[in-house]
């Protein structure tokens, strides 16, 4: 659908090549879904388009919880955190987002995005606070100064404020735009599911297929911490190729962060207690083990799509990320153990789209090689989850079928074979996705 629109707009001469590429960039994580967002995290509103406001709601019923209510979700061999809460059985509102954008003038734009995402905790309390995901001011520069390639002008963009990361499309994965209701292992384990932080971004924005940039972060977003030596920065490059019915994207990124006494804020990190379990059940206190040290991630994202008719397409997406950590685990009791970690995760996602139907498969795998040393290595490693005693290799296979019932409403059902924990689990889901424009500003973009 996106490619069809692109060709149509090019034919009509409505938008420039650079702007067209901007739309397709947003569609990477949508896996070909026709409800790709208008106002995405990296959407740059058009001049004269007025204020644009989009909203999305995703609700999903699941047949099983990934862990019991009074257990912690800790994938063996990893240090998790951020907002990577386990999915729970029953009905869950996975996501509520409202995003607005406005082009103030030829060179300035503003964006605001609010989000509520599914949480949940060991105690059963829901963690569903409203989060400001974007609140940024952007500047566009040099669009017509001839720095571009051939007939296409280069577009340099600088943004500052609360931003969502642009270095990997993995982190654009809202459940309303992804094929699956559950984020990937890369997003959950390496980035704590979401990445919104105060920072700044400078990039060459989708010029002749290229997006190249750098971002610097205050460090609030997992896996970093703010203050002191905390903080993070990244660089990225992505190239998109469009030819007839074929669309390909290839990107690479490098991210580095400092963490100071980083906690797993899902369960610990502050004043914490053993959750009170009802009679007959037991609950244990979360071990508040912290990590201090360096975190370096690098990754590659790729996608290929072929659209053989106006209503049908097929493609495959791939994401690979490697995490290295060099630091120490420690606790409030003065225990400390050195940690060197090499972990990688990968997923492959082929999909097939025909009319209102989208069928996607995702296969994921995570491998952790951690080296712990020190008198408390075993104790802290086991408590923190870094010690993978059994050598278990987390993996997961997911199958999703999405039916686009109305332009703004879709139904999704999934089957998931989850082997991220040592006890394998199968679960299925049924959900509804609403994603629409509340205020279009009199100028329509995108795929519906």
């Amino acid at each position, binding site marked *: 659908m996106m490619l069809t629109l692109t060709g149509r707009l090019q034919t009509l001469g409505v938008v420039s090549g650079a702007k067209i590429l901007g739309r397709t960039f947003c569609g990477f994580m949508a896996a070909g879904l026709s409800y790709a967002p208008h106002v995405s995290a990296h959407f740059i509103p058009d001049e004269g388009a007025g204020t644009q406001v989009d909203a999305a709601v995703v609700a999903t019923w699941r047949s099983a919880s990934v862990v019991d209510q009074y257990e912690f979700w800790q994938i063996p061999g990893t240090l998790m955190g951020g907002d990577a809460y386990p999915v729970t059985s029953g009905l869950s509102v996975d996501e509520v987002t409202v995003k607005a954008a406005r082009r103030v003038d030829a060179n300035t734009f503003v964006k605001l995005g609010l989000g509520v995402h599914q949480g949940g905790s060991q105690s059963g309390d829901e963690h569903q606070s409203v989060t400001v995901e974007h609140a940024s001011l952007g500047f566009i520069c040099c669009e017509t100064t001839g720095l571009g390639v051939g007939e296409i002008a280069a577009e340099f963009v600088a943004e500052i404020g609360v931003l969502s990361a642009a270095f990997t499309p993995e982190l654009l994965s809202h459940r309303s735009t992804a094929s699956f209701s559950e984020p990937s292992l890369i997003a959950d384990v390496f980035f704590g599911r979401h990445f919104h932080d105060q920072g700044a971004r400078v990039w060459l924005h989708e010029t002749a297929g290229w997006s190249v940039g750098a971002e610097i972060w205050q460090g609030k977003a997992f896996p970093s911490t703010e203050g002191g030596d905390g903080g993070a920065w990244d660089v990225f490059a992505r190239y998109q190729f469009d030819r007839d019915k074929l669309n390909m994207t290839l990107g690479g990124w490098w991210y580095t962060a400092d963490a100071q006494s980083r906690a797993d804020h899902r369960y610990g990190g502050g004043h914490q207690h*053993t959750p009170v*379990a009802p009679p007959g059940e037991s609950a244990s206190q979360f071990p508040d083990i912290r990590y201090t040290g360096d975190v370096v991630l690098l990754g590659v994202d790729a996608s290929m799509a072929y659209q053989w008719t106006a209503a049908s397409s097929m493609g495959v997406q791939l994401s690979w990320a490697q995490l290295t950590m060099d630091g120490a685990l420690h606790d409030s009791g*003065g225990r*400390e153990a050195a940690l060197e970690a090499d972990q990688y995760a990968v997923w492959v996602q082929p999909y097939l789209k025909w009319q209102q139907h989208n069928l996607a498969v995702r296969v994921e795998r995570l491998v952790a*090689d951690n080296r712990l040393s020190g008198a408390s290595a075993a*104790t802290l490693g086991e408590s923190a989850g870094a010690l993978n005693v059994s050598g278990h290799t987390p993996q997961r296979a997911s199958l999703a079928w999405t039916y686009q019932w109305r332009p703004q409403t879709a139904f999704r059902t999934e089957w998931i074979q989850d082997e991220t924990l040592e006890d394998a689990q199968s679960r299925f889901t049924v959900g509804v996705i609403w994603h629409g424009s509340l205020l279009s500003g009199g100028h329509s973009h995108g795929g519906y």
Partner: protein
Amino acid sequence: MVDDEGARESEFDWRVPASIPLPVEPEDNPMTEAKFQLGRHLFYDARLSVNGEISCASCHHQSKAFSDGIQRPVGATGEVHPRNSQSLTNSAYFNNLTWGNPALATIEQQIMLPLFGDNPIEHGIDESNFEQIIMTVQADETYQRLFLNAFPEQDDPLWGDLAWDNVVKAIGSFVRGMTSFNSAFDRGELSASARRGEALFNSERLECFHCHDGYNFSDATIDRGVAFLEPKFHNTGLYNIDGMGAYPEPNTGRHEVTGNPDHMGQFRTPSLRNVAVTAPYNHDGSVATLEEVIRNYARGGRVIATGENAGDGRISPFKDGVLVPFRISDAEVDDLVAFLESLTDHNFLTDPRFSNPWESTGENL
């Protein structure tokens, strides 16, 4: 891959579960079974006192987890100790010894106080009698053998200049070896009442575990994995005799040593292991039962209506901030006590390994 850098290595059989880190061994007094056994004989030997009537075991009874069951013990000269006898359970895991002295970091340092101290006098050993006392030890054939076994690197461990030093190290080794991790709690055999009590113990309402945390139920716990631990002492609002937070002299806790007014009434968190058999409670043994301890905490401090120690500990300016009043029903008190009772290691209380060796030889000292 895990490299614990020898954290589980020791010549001594600590009898500690794999899930519990091993204690720190002093470099100048590494643990050996021979020293442990020598220390056990010395611990129970009343000859190590000015009047031949006081041994370490006089105030540290095995059946009471090496406490003594009375409010305050009496020394060899009749002097009453201002402090309650602490249990010696898992002493090896404390980062400082005694109730309120942040300077006592090793068991060997602590042992010098009851043996040779004069404020108060406990064993009453001093310059006037120490030679005579060690001579009684030297004359015992059992000790001649035990000292040679315990200190094989020394030519003359019993008669040489290091004899008293060896006495202290041996007793220190015995006390350090008193490990206890075989309670119903450790075995996961809690009753329904104890499980409810455990939840209360860790609840937002009661806050018990903030100070009594970890495997030894004390925030003053140190082991081989702990790089450094700040001294941790707490004022629990037990006294407020002048309305300004004062504790009765000389029992002012950490303040007694440091002189820092902010340290008034601060005492080290005792372990709760075997706590059910170590009554009476608190640093001066002034609280008779666990139930009473819990109710003092529930009130946010102790109120003493009459007498020389009258005062409202709830409003002490030195009281630890974590101590806030909470509501608790009688049934919940029972549950909490049941949980604390589940921390009793009954095997520890009767284990022949820690018992009086002189009884088995017919010499009841």
